[in-house]
């Protein structure tokens, strides 16, 4: 196992990105860091800058202004390998905003997505379960 992958599995640094959401998913993601759910005991912590991110937690229905920036951020600033997690219905498929004039494309047409966590919003337990599933999957594939 390479050093990078080992580091990613042992202590993934997550960066949270909102592409135009109602913030419920964002608050639930931040709730994961607070004492009741506390993902820091799994080694996960919020990266201060996207250049340090191993895992990109993306929420939101990808509206036009955000879409341009998300593409640029993913291609230029995020160090690879990076795992993209789409949290919530909006990030999965835009959910009820599928017909909105300002949300033309779903997230996975813009950047590759590895994990989908459904819910509106998904409870912190679901987010943690999703990330743990991801880590196990990555471990199994190495």
């Amino acid at each position: 196992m390479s050093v990078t992958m080992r580091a990613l599995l042992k202590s993934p640094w997550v960066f949270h990105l909102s592409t135009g959401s109602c913030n419920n998913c964002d608050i639930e993601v931040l709730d994961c860091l607070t004492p009741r759910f506390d993902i820091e005991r799994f080694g996960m912590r919020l990266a201060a800058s996207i250049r340090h991110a191993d895992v990109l937690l993306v929420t939101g229905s990808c509206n036009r202004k955000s879409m341009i920036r998300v593409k640029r951020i993913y291609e230029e600033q995020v160090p690879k390998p990076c795992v993209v997690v789409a949290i919530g219905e909006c990030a999965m498929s835009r959910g009820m905003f599928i017909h909105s004039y300002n949300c033309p494309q779903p997230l996975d047409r813009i950047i590759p997505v590895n994990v989908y966590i459904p819910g509106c919003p998904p409870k912190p337990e679901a987010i943690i379960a999703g990330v743990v599933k991801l880590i196990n999957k990555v471990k199994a594939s190495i």
Partner: protein
Amino acid sequence: MPKSVITIGPYHPLQEEPELFQLTVEGETVVDIEVSVGYNHRGIEKLSERKTFDQSTFVIERICGICSTSHPFAYTQAVEDIIPVEVPERAKYIRTIIAEGERIHSHLLWFGLAGHFLGYNTVYMWMWRLREEILDVMEILSGNRNNYAMFKPGGVRRDIKPEDIPLAIKKIDSILPTVDRLKGAILDDPVLHARLKGIGTLTKEEAIAYCALGPTSRASGVARDVRKDAPYAAYDRVDWNMIVTANGDVWDKAVVRLLELYESIKIMKHCLLNLPGGEIDLKIKSIPPGEGIGAHEAPRGETFHYVRSDGTNRPARHKVRAPTFMNLPTLKATVPGSSIADAAIILAAIDPCYCCTERLAVRSADGKKLFGGDELLRLSREKTTRILKEAGKR
């Protein structure tokens, strides 16, 4: 003195929503601020026209996650205003309970974020842990931690079971000791006084000229609260106080939210304990042509919905106005003149909810980057540390 421009956002790890603030800075003082929004614009008003009146409630709920009840509350009242019709008593009480529960968890969330911006991470963790108790109460009463889906035009969707009420009251009471400690910690702490008093002052005249709303305007002495000025639901059946302070600085905004917490707890408990019997839903079959307006005092200010019906089962026009849309421009009056270290907390003081509204890097004039958005937070926390040290010396 050369001017530089600081950009905060659009993706700042601390702000949940993306938005862009550009501060123009001379030395240590901010001289101008430019706010760009639009990163959350999802075209909800147009979307509402494709949905039926009932379906639209679900879309409206997802305008904002933190104030998820505020928009359905105003929207359902707007639709009921078209007819016009009053919902049953029990529905009014249930609506009030859900709305006040949301206010409590929203204000606790704000205290956590304010603590984080100032460098008091313990406050951040404590307040968010405390919030979990209220979210448990909401889950007991409505089935979900957020996006309660309790509102519909004509009443509420689900009833509150009598056997759930004692547990809900017990959980609400359990947060009171910690809220008392927070009150003591905030009101008496000289470091917080030095850090927040006189910062980001919005005068009464400016609050009125910008049409500011919610705690942002009540902190400046403007005694306006939709629950008192145009009573609806059960707000005129409970004895509670509107909190107004006079100075309009960040300190006052914090005090208003803190005291509102106590009032919300009072209203919520009173409604839970005095829930009247009866129907919860008028079962409205059709909406006649006409116009209606509904407003609700959300945690951040007044949400305002205007709905026009043409007699079909879909809105012909649905205008949504969230409080932050009116409060964000007040930054033009409060931020210039302050120091960079204070910019972060002044921005947070209006409790911005950009998702409702639509729907910081210092760059010198020649484009070379000097500070980042996280640098501004670091400056904010360093100022607190400095003040702490000085207080220790005395």
